């Protein structure tokens, strides 16, 4: 017990050391002039730049624009993907109808469709939100389908033998049993939504983190570029940690494959 606690603390200690080493090497390398400041600004300069873009409100604004696009797109994908995935698991016809489309669309790089979305929905938020929904809907669909079709048959049979109606079956048996695995697919889709938002903003502009990142790069404002990248890293980490927290709250039996 104590040995484990010590080694746990040792692990944190080593993690801290390794992150600090990277930062110190970065700072020292930049200060020593190993790389021009244009290519690698010192870490302290990046942090002070981060503070100033936070203080003048530009970074929080960009972040809120990007996050709201990602969230609306992900929400849309969930609203379509989860019901359709469950319906596909329950109906052989729907499975036949949608399976080939999903098989073709799932491995395709969704960002290639961006020009079509721009053509149809303009260059502002709508095209980006819909592209995010398009990119996220397939992992959610596949995850929900797998979750709903792997619900224990015995549960369904015993509910059916007790005269459960179709709707009750769906909401009282299938959904509760499948929910933890559906949530796991949402955890997969979350980074997809962030990546798609940032990339679409980088390609087509229209505000948000990605657009400002490209803009700063064009004017060679390296500290801003680094500050934005660091912010994206932290946002990704925080959101994933949050999802893990929620997932850990599920009972252990339900998350076992």
């Amino acid at each position, binding site marked *: 017990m104590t040995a484990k606690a010590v080694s746990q603390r*040792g*692990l944190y200690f*080593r*993690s*801290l*050391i*390794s*992150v600090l080493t*990277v930062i110190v090497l970065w700072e020292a390398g930049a200060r020593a002039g190993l790389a021009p400041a*244009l*290519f690698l600004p010192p870490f302290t300069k990046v942090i002070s730049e981060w503070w100033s873009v936070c203080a003048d409100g530009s970074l929080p604004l960009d972040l809120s624009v990007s996050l709201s696009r990602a969230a609306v797109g992900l929400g849309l994908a969930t609203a379509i993907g989860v019901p359709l995935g469950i319906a596909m698991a329950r109906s*052989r016809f729907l499975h*036949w*109808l*949608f*399976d*080939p*489309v999903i*098989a*073709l*669309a*799932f*491995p*395709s*790089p*969704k*960002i*290639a*469709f*961006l*020009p*079509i979305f*721009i*053509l*149809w929905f303009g260059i502002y938020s709508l095209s980006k939100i819909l592209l995010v929904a398009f990119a996220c809907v397939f992992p959610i669909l596949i995850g929900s389908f797998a979750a709903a079709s792997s619900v224990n048959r015995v549960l369904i049979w015993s509910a059916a033998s007790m005269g459960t109606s179709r709707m009750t079956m769906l909401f009282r048996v299938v959904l509760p049993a499948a929910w933890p695995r559906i949530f796991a697919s949402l955890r997969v889709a979350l*980074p997809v939504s*962030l*990546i798609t938002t*940032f*990339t679409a903003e*980088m*390609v087509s502009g229209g505000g948000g*983190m*990605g657009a400002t*990142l*490209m803009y*700063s*790069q064009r004017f*060679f404002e*390296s500290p801003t*570029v*680094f500050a*934005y*990248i660091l912010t*994206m*890293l932290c946002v*990704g*980490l925080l*959101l*994933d940690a949050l999802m893990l927290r929620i997932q850990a709250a599920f009972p252990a039996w339900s998350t076992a494959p």
Partner: protein
Amino acid sequence: MQEADRASLLSSPVGRVLPLLLIGLLWQAVSASGLVDPAFLPSPARVGYAIYDLLAGREIRDNLFITLWRAGLGLALGSSVGIWLGLMMARSPVFRAYASPIVGGTYSLPKSALIPLFILWFGIGTTTTVCAVFLACLLPMVVNTAQGVASTPRVLVWGAEALGTRPRAMLWQVYLPHALPDIFSGLRVALGFSFVLAISSEMIASTNGIGKLIFMYGENGAYDYMFAAIACVVVVAFLADRLLLALTEKSLRWHESARGR
């Protein structure tokens, strides 16, 4: 009996193509009805002709090959370095302790955010794209390999050691074969990333490649050609994914997961 016949017909390869044909017919009907401006939604017939025209010329082939070369190079470098790093992480607790915060930190970073940085460092061109693809492919390979190697059952290790397997042979005969299913599932993720990153970095900054070509058609208003080029990308990505799946199945024929298939 009749029901079973119909079910088997629908699940046959011909039956599986039917829904796609239905969508094509619907699309043709919508564009023929004139409800939608044909500039916004070119009819399947026009897109089909554009595909035929593109395949006859060199433009798409050359640009597609450039993109595939960049994606393939990044994937190959990223997966080989990733397997090695994952192996090190699983086998050495010290290395894992130092490397895991960096791997965990960069894992959730959208790799396309690094493209502007690579443009700063390497300029516009193949190096930038290959670097972005490399990083995107590296992390899923590291995580999957580490997971696969670390979960090797002790019984297998003890058994091999009792039979006198040398430490070097342990790697090739115990750890890597046990991690192979995980490595392949990492490879499938990395393959998808390689296409996404190659195409998005070409859209952001490049003078050639399929991503640039798609955008160029869009900017010039040649929407039927834009749709055709996107269709080519979808088909190529689909075929690459299927090829990898077939390879996985062939390499894992001995594995438990192949049983009953």
